[in-house]
């Protein structure tokens, strides 16, 4: 198992190369460059040429890319062209925050999702079931943007219970976690319900019941662990998505996360920031995938990794 994990972590290296190469190329293919954006409307061609030279943007693309890779390998991620902040510092700050937000959101999502999904599966076609599946449909369909603003309107403006945005204590995470978690909760709920229903039809469940175990033991001890595997897949995907780019939630609630760093960096053609952020997002995605795969082994002892 350990060798498997190490091998997966090693694969991160070619993935990061690929990611930085693709994002570097894409960003240079798009019209506009940071010198023009920094220069502003009033800048002359001479001003822009000077800014380009200052940031090494006039060198051939290959040279620029190799210089970036060389520095990155030594831990120097460069400085943001837009603000001069060191990129490494920015990445740490934003990643730390995004982790907080994502953990809070996945907590909200799994709690609501699992509870709703499991209970629905045991009471199929009941009022609870219909209501929670409708709720799930709502959660998936509602634009996160709209939900976020609605939460702010109700809980911050009208009730004054929670802040409307920004950072601070744990209170500041509540509304964003609900907004970001709601779509994931919906997906988790539906998957949990479907998976539990399928497991419930298995022979071994019937056997367990026949053995005389209480219903609760049958469901939770025998059924749940097996039903969790597909749910785990969904869980991993949703968590990965949250870590990579909750940019809409971050924009509505004014949160300094990695999603906004990446998107705003793209608008400003801030190459070092975009490269750095892409690397972080790719790394978190690979690691989350790895964790999910490892977790499978815990839930299903039949799964072995060499």
């Amino acid at each position: 198992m350990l060798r498997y994990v190490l091998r997966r972590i090693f694969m991160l290296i070619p993935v990061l190369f690929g990611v930085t190469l693709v994002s570097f190329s894409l960003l240079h293919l798009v019209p506009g460059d940071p010198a023009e954006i920094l220069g502003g409307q009033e800048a002359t061609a001479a001003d822009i040429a000077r800014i380009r030279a200052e940031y090494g943007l006039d060198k051939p693309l290959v040279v620029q890319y190799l210089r970036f890779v060389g520095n990155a390998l030594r831990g120097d991620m460069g400085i943001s062209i837009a603000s001069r902040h060191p990129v490494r510092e920015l990445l740490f700050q934003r990643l730390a925050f995004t982790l907080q937000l994502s953990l809070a959101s996945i907590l909200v999502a799994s709690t609501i999702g699992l509870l709703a999904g499991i209970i629905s599966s045991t009471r199929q076609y009941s009022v609870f079931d219909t209501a929670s599946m409708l709720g799930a449909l709502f959660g998936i369909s509602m634009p996160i943007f709209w939900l976020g603003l609605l939460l702010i309107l109700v809980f911050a403006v009208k009730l004054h219970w929670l802040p409307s945005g920004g950072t601070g204590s744990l209170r500041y995470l509540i509304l964003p976690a609900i907004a970001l978690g709601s779509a994931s909760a919906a997906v988790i709920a539906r998957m949990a319900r479907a998976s539990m229903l399928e497991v419930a039809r298995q022979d071994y469940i019937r056997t367990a019941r026949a053995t005389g175990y209480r219903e609760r033991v049958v469901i939770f001890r025998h059924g749940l662990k097996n039903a969790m595997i597909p749910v785990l897949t969904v869980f991993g995907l949703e968590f990965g998505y949250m870590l990579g780019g909750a940019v809409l939630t971050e924009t509505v609630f004014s949160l300094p996360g990695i999603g906004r760093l990446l998107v705003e960096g793209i608008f400003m053609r801030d190459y070092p920031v975009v490269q750095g952020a892409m690397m972080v997002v790719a790394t978190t995605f690979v690691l989350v995938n790895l964790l999910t795969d490892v977790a499978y082994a815990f839930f299903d002892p039949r799964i072995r990794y060499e």
Partner: protein
Amino acid sequence: MRRVGWALILVLMVGGIALVPGAWAAMQPVSGGTLIYGAGADPDSLDPANTDSNTGEAFGHMMNNYLVRFDAKVKIHPDLATEWTQSKDGLTWTFKLRKDVKFHDGTPFNAEAVKYNFDRFLGPEKPLKSGLHDVIIKSVDVVDEYTVRFNLKAPFAFFLNNLAHSATGIVSPAAHKKWGKDLTLHPVGTGPFKFVEWVRGDHVTLVRNDDYYEGKPRLEKIIVKTVREDSARVLGLEAGDYDLIVRIPPEEVPRLMREGKVRIDAEQSNRALRIAFNVTKKPFDDVRVRQALNYAVDKESIVKNIYQGLAAVIPDVVGPLNVGYAPVKGYPYDPAKAKKLLAEAGFPNGFKTTLWTPQGRYLKDYELAQAVQQQLAAVGVDAKLETFEWGAYMATLRKPKDEAKQEMYLIGWAPSTGEARWGIYPIMSCDQWRPTGSNDSFYCNKKLDELIAKSVASTTMKARDDYLRQAQEVLVQDPAGIYLLATKETVGMSLKLHDIINSPLELVYADKDTWKEP
């Protein structure tokens, strides 16, 4: 009965006396408190010489002073300079400086510091806004410890405006020597508030400068938070999370004013929006077509319906609060005349063209472009609307004449020096064609350039303003675009916040007198 009467009077008197101090206290400025300012974007730079954005410039005003400064009506006042004289030939300006000013790092403000700052603009570092000064100033001399002399390359009637520009904040030479380009991460000025920290994308914190030369500022701390989403900013103001926000969507303004829980202030800005023509492309090379399109657009209706009155129609490209603005006669809405002129030019059935617009860059830009498109369609001009992301827009508009693809495009321009010449010259002059200057219309009118040059060389304000008036008349007769409007900068404030500066240069900031009720 009489005793009750007396008792009642006594009660009323005591009650009245008790209430009066309360009412009095509510109106007196208090010292202390933290201002939470919801800005629409992070500053681009905290180094005044390198900032080009409204947020950056607002910080410039809170942390720095200038030799001379604009007031809320864009009039010049002394600031770090107490008096000045100009030589008869207009080539030399001499300023006497204040003697009681220190930078936030304790170093003294004096003529050496001023010379250092301007040498920086003229020297090899070439900060972003050096173009403001290096074409005008030849050199700067220290006459004595508190007197400084500027030697100009040619007489320049708007020199004081350039000195009051947000970029000309005087920074500490010691700090610049230490940090160089990274001064933006460690700004040091002489202003009412000092820098504490900048968490990129989240907030900037400033604290009171107790030694500020004009007197101790009232506010103790300012936190400027980055709130990119317009609706979230408004909701945050209503929830009480922010005391001050900028850029309120116009459709929210009537509701907010009606509810009265927050105060809304709308100031005329000098950001002029127009639909520019590329005059090298047919049919925009025909002045009759350009005039016709100006008649075809109902600007008053746009201001009323799209901007809810939060804009002002302007006759050309100069907004009302600029030095040198002249209320020349612009184009009224006359679609019949538009059709007639088009027919005369050979387009009785109109023509096809493209209309480019950014989205979200200027207030209601996309909606404005849509409205113009519809009004043009009514006179037979079929304009295909194309939206651009701002970075791509700028890249595309920078192309030289032979590569330029634009036909009609929505663009804005705000002269940060607050004077009409800068509102016209960079975007209309024959020698400012892209990529050298900012003239992406490739407009060229020799008479206009002559008038501008004469206004610059004027030695009296009257002559200067007269040439500018004539220049604006030329712009109207020979249009470079469909002239539209100058937007109003809306600012929302908590009812407890007082004396915020809201200047037509789109600068919203706190100064030493700003205060907040506890």
